[in-house]
C-alpha cells in the first residue's frame, strides 16, 4: 500500500531552504512515499503567536486549516518547530466545540516532522544515503522538548554511509534564535549563538546539521559571521545525498 503525504514546506523553509525541501521530497520518494504539495500553503502562524498576536495568528491558522485540514493522508514538514505549533498550539486558537477546533485536532494527529515520520511512522532508519563527512547534530528545542524527538535524527544519521557523527557539547542547549526573540533582544541572541558556534567549532565537525530551518538560518549566519568553514545543512540534505550525486 502506498503511503501518501502532503508536504508542508513551511515559510522559512520555502524562502531560505529550497534545497532542504527538494531533498525532503527525494528522501520520501526514495522510501516509497507518494508526496503531494498543496499549492495554497503559506505559514502556520507561529511568528505571530510567539509575538503575542494570538488573534492575528488565528487568521493564519485558519488559512492553514483550509489547505491542510481535510483528508486522511499524513502531513510531513521538515521543521520540528512548525509541527510543534500545529500539534500543540493550533487547536487552542479556536474555541472548544468549534468545527475549526475539531479540524485542528484532527490535523494535529496527522502531522509529523520529517525524521519523526521516517523513523516513527515508516520505521525506516537507513534511507540509503552516502555522506562522507564529519557531522555534528544540533537538537532543536521545539523538536526535542515540544515533540519529544530525541533519537530519531541520530538513528538516521548513524545509518548514513561514510558519515562520522561527532558529539557536540551541550547539543540540547538552545542556539539563541527564538524567532521574534532574536529581533527583540539581538545582543542576547548573539551571545547564546556564539556559545553554540564555539561548541560547533570545538566538535571538529565539517557539517552541522539540524531538523529546523529556523535554527539553521541563525547558525549558518553565525558561522559566516565568525568566519567558520563549517557548513550548516538541513538533515534532509544529508539524507538525500548518495553516491550517484558525488
Amino acid at each position, binding site marked *: 500500500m502506498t503511503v501518501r503525504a502532503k508536504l508542508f514546506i513551511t515559510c522559512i523553509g520555502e524562502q531560505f531552504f529550497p534545497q532542504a525541501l*527538494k531533498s525532503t521530497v*527525494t528522501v520520501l520518494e526514495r522510501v516509497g512515499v507518494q508526496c503531494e504539495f498543496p499549492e495554497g500553503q503559506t505559514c502556520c502562524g507561529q511568528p505571530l503567536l510567539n509575538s503575542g498576536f494570538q488573534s492575528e495568528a488565528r487568521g493564519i491558522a485558519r488559512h492553514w486549516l483550509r489547505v491542510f485540514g481535510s483528508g486522511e493522508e499524513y502531513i510531513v514538514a521538515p521543521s520540528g518547530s512548525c509541527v510543534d505549533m500545529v500539534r500543540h498550539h493550533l487547536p487552542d486558537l479556536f474555541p472548544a466545540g468549534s468545527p475549526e477546533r475539531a479540524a485542528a485536532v484532527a490535523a494535529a494527529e496527522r502531522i509529523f516532522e520529517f525524521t519523526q515520520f521516517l523513523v516513527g511512522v515508516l520505521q525506516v532508519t537507513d534511507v540509503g544515503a552516502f555522506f562522507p563527512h564529519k557531522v555534528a547534530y544540533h537538537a532543536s528545542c521545539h523538536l526535542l522538548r515540544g515533540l519529544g524527538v530525541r533519537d530519531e535524527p541520530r538513528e538516521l544519521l548513524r545509518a548514513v554511509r561514510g558519515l562520522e557523527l561527532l558529539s557536540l557539547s551541550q547539543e540540547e*542547549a538552545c542556539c539563541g534564535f527564538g524567532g521574534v526573540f532574536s529581533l527583540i533582544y539581538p545582543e*542576547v*541572541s*548573539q551571545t547564546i549563538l556564539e556559545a553554540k558556534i564555539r561548541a560547533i567549532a570545538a566538535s571538529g565537525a565539517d557539517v552541522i546539521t539540524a531538523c529546523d530551518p529556523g535554527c539553521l538560518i541563525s547558525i549558518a549566519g553565525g558561522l559566516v559571521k565568525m568566519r567558520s568553514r563549517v557548513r550548516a545543512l538541513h538533515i534532509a540534505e544529508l539524507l538525500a545525498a548518495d553516491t550517484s550525486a558525488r
Partner: protein
Amino acid sequence: MSRHFPTIDFRANARRVAPAVPAAVQRATMRFLANRAAVVQEMGQARWEDLRRAAHDLRLHTVEHLDYYLARAEAQILAAGGAVHWARDAAEARRIVLSIAQQHGARCVVKAKSMATEEIGLNHALEAAGIEVLETDLGEYLVQLAGQGPSHIIVPAVHMTKEGIASLFRQRLGVDAPAEPQALAGIARSRLREAFLSAEVGITGANFLVAETGTLVIVTNEGNGRMCTTLPPVHVAVVGIEKVVPDWESLTVLLKVLARSATGQKLSCYTSFITGPRRDPAEHGPRQLHVVVLDNGRTRILRDARARETLLCVRCGSCLNVCPVYNHVGGHAYGWVYSGPIGAILTPQLLGTAVAGSLPFASTLCGACSEICPVKIPIHEILLHLRRRAMEGDEMDPPVASGLIRAGAKVSAWFLRSPWLYAAAAHLAGMMQRPLWRDGWLHWLPPPLGRWTLVRPFPTFQGDFRSWWRRRRGGRIAARPPRNGTGRDD
C-alpha cells in the same frame, strides 16, 4: 502598586551586564545542574517524574483551596502561641514588620535569606526608620554590602567573583582580604556572629507553611536561618500565601524535589521546623513569633486560570540554571528581585504589564524551564500567554504594544495568510535584496530587520521549490534535486 516601579527595559539592562558575569553565573549553574542530574539519576527518572507529578498536583490543589488551608494554618499558628498578620500588599507588610520591630525597640535586626522580604523592599523601609538590617545568608550579605539585589533565587551573589568580593570587603569593611573563599567567609562570619547576639528581631521568610500544625519550614545550607530564628527574642516570618502546604505528608514530597532541584542535594544542610514561639521560659528560642501572610498580587494571579500555575513555584532556581538567556545575562537584567524564566512570568504579573511587559519576551521559548521545573509549571506556555497580554491585552491588563507594532502585526498577518500576497512579498523581497547581496548573504538590512544583521548575516530569499515542483510534475526534471539549489528556475 505598579506606579512605584519604573518600566523594566530588559534590553538596556542586558547590555549593561559586565563581561565577567556570564562566566561566573555559568560556573555555578553548570555545577548545580550536574549535581541535580546525578541525584535524579540515582533516584531513577521514572520515580523522579512520579514525584514531579505528585508535587504539581498537590501544589495545584493547595493554591486552588488556599482559603481553606490558610484558615487552618492561621488557627494552628495561634494555637501554638504565634501571631498572624495578614498583609494585602507590600506597603502593609512593611508597616506590620516595622511596627513589630519598633514595639520591641529594635535597633538591629538580622535576616535570613527571603525572596518575600526582597519583594516587599523591607530592608529599605526598616533602614529608613533608623533600624540597622543585616543579611546573614553569605550571598545576601554580599549583595547587601554591594548595594545590589539578588541575582539568583538561591545564590544571590552568583554574579560575583572571589576577586570582586575581596575588593568589596576592602572598600566597604576596610579589611585586606585574600581572594580566597574560606578567608572571605571567615570575615563575614565574624561580623555576623556579633549581630546574631545583639539583634532584637530575627526576620525570615519560609519555604513552606504546614497548615496541619502551623509549622514554618525553613531550608538553608548555612545555619544562619536557625540562628535568626533562635537567638533574637522576636522572630518575624514573611510568608507568601502560596507557601502553605496541607500536611506533613505533602511536605515530604516538596522537600524531596526542592533540595534536589535547587542544589542537587537530597536534603539541604538545615531544614528547620518552627511551630510557635518557646512555650516555657526555660526553653531556647524567641519569646514571640509573628507570621506575616503576604498577598501582594498573588490572589490576582490566582484569578487567571491560564497563569495560575505560576503560584506553584517553590523557588528552587532550577529554571534559571537551565535557561540560555539567564545564563548569558545573569539575574539583574530582569530588573527586579525575581529573575530567569520564573521572573519573566512572575514579575509581569506582580508588577503589571506596564512595568514588566518586556520580560515575557526575554526567552527563546526553548522550553528547558518547563522541562526541568520540579512542580511542572508550564513556564513557556505562560510566557506566551503573557506575551499576548502585553501585545493584545486581556481582562487582567491593557496592551502595552504601540499602535505601529500592532499595525505591523496586522499587515504581516495579511501577507502570511493570503497565498497571493505571500508570493508577491517573497518575489518583491527577492528583487529588493539584489543590491545588498554578497556571497549569498545579506550583511545589512533596514530596521527592524537590521537587528538581525547586527548579529549575523541574513540568508537570501531564494525560494524556487514551487517552480521546481511544477517542472518536475511536468516530467522535465529527474527525481533527483540539482546539487546546487540556489539558482532560480524561472
